């Protein structure tokens, strides 16, 4: 065991925590599931890049991409990813008041306002993307 395993901590009296500590409580599990959303964010980027690639290759490969994305494994993966990505978004915006301290005329804006403005930005971004993609 090297000392660099635990940076900035001397190895004195540290009780071993179970590897499965996140199964002990629902809130711990929610935390680790939120952290795992990172994997599905990365998959979303990969999926989008496959779409960009297919579109740039022409109409045929775009159609192939569409039928590939309708196959059961890809669909299941995307449904799972959607749940995780929405979980990420909801928790991210809910935590925004903790990360952003906004003062207006010397008074701190209430957290609910900041969270609400973040959710509003989410709704606007969603509407913009839907309009760009679906509006002809």
């Amino acid at each position, binding site marked *: 065991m090297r000392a660099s*395993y*635990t940076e900035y901590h001397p190895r004195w009296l540290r009780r071993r*925590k179970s*590897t499965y500590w*996140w199964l002990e409580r629902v809130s711990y599990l929610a935390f*680790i599931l939120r*952290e*795992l*959303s*990172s*994997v599905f*964010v*990365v998959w*979303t*980027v*990969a*999926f*989008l*890049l496959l*779409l*960009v*690639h297919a*579109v*740039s290759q*022409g*109409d045929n490969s*775009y*159609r192939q991409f*569409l039928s590939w*994305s*309708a196959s059961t494994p*890809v*669909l299941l993966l*995307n*449904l799972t*990813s*959607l749940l995780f*990505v*929405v979980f*990420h*978004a909801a928790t*991210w*915006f809910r935590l925004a008041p903790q*990360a952003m301290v906004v003062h207006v005329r010397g008074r701190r804006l209430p957290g609910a306002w900041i969270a609400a403005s973040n959710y509003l*930005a*989410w709704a606007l*971004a*969603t509407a913009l*993307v*839907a309009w*760009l*993609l*679906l509006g*002809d």
Partner: protein
Amino acid sequence: MAKRSFEPLLWLLFSAGGVLAALLAPILLLLFGVAFPLGWLSPPGHEHLLELLRHPLARVFLFGFCTLSLVHGAHRFRYTLYDGLQIKHLNEFVNLVCYGGAIVGSAVAAHLLWRVA
């Protein structure tokens, strides 16, 4: 000490990527991953998408989205392994795979977006 100065930058990129992923990933995945494949909505035609992708702003924006989301994912996954599975003895390897993967992914994104003609 020189090593520590990287952390704030990583957290900044993590946050930027977190915001972009939260704003855009759900709707993009809902449309292309679920709604179009299940036939809830009809997908946009090839011409329409190509027209959108040809716009330089769209490509710059998509590149930013991809890069920052990948860094966000890498940074968070690194800490998932660190906290969740307590993989601390492989720190350097994990960092290399996570951030290295994000850099390679960004390069692939730049290449693919650049090639859209």
